[in-house]
């Protein structure tokens, strides 16, 4: 299984904001694990979707040269459940960004209705964990993440 919890970006403003969507399908196994006969998207995976949206935004701000790690869920307030057949919209705004990391304020919606408010902290681990050795290659931003951004950028130029 691919660990990717957003389907595509619909807006991306470097160093400022990003919006991604995810279509929830009944075919997704994890929907059935929380409550039998009542499939919902687990809150933890809604946070993960926001972390992926925001993480790519933070990574792009430094040309994917930093290893960007979700370091803290500062706040997560949920207002409504998400069910199969719905489209989740993740909107992330960079509140602060410096050489050490970034803070993000995000909102999650379905059909314009608030699903969650999520604040996250990301760390540039090479700048913060002095003394610890990490692999030189950027293991955070694998192809499956960078492809999402490439696809968004190409969409404007492709005509079928």
């Amino acid at each position, binding site marked *: 299984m691919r660990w990717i919890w957003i389907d595509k970006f619909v807006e991306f403003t470097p160093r400022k904001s990003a919006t991604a969507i995810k279509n929830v399908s009944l075919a997704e196994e994890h929907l059935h694990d929380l409550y039998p006969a009542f499939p919902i998207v687990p809150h933890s995976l809604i946070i993960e979707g926001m972390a992926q949206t925001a993480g790519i935004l933070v990574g792009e701000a430094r040309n994917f040269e930093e290893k960007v790690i979700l370091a*803290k869920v500062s706040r997560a307030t949920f207002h409504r459940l998400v069910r199969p057949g719905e489209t989740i919209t993740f909107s992330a705004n960079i509140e602060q960004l410096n050489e050490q990391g970034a*803070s993000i304020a995000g909102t999650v919606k379905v059909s314009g209705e608030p699903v969650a408010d999520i604040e996250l902290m990301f760390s540039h681990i090479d700048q913060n964990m*002095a003394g610890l050795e990490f692999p030189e290659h950027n293991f955070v931003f694998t192809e499956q993440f960078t492809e999402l951004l490439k696809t968004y950028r190409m969409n404007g130029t492709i005509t079928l």
Partner: protein
Amino acid sequence: MAREEIYEKVKGVLVDALGVDEEEVTPTAVIKDDLGAESIDFLDISFRLEKAFGIKIGKGEMMPENLASDPTKVQNGMLTPVGISELKERMPRTDFSEFEKDPKVDNMSKLFTVDTIVNFVESKVGTAV
């Protein structure tokens, strides 16, 4: 800005960043040991202070870093007199009396109290252009 006003704002920052109760935030509370801060929380606190006071905080400015990698400042896990003197310079108005009895690097976090942050912000706000 009056020190009282700075203290109240710092208290709000710590309550939000660390999820602690207001009553837990006292001037002498140690940020790590008493309020339970982990390393990422220091970046969170720093971001929130920047926002609350309209200041810029550079890397290692609020909490001195990289001392441990300098052999003139740290030897065998203990701060040398040179290291202590640099720390004193960078953390003015901090009480070093307890720390100097056992100047282990591991004990450095005990110096970092709510008052240390208030002192730091006071110096930043005072020098802001």
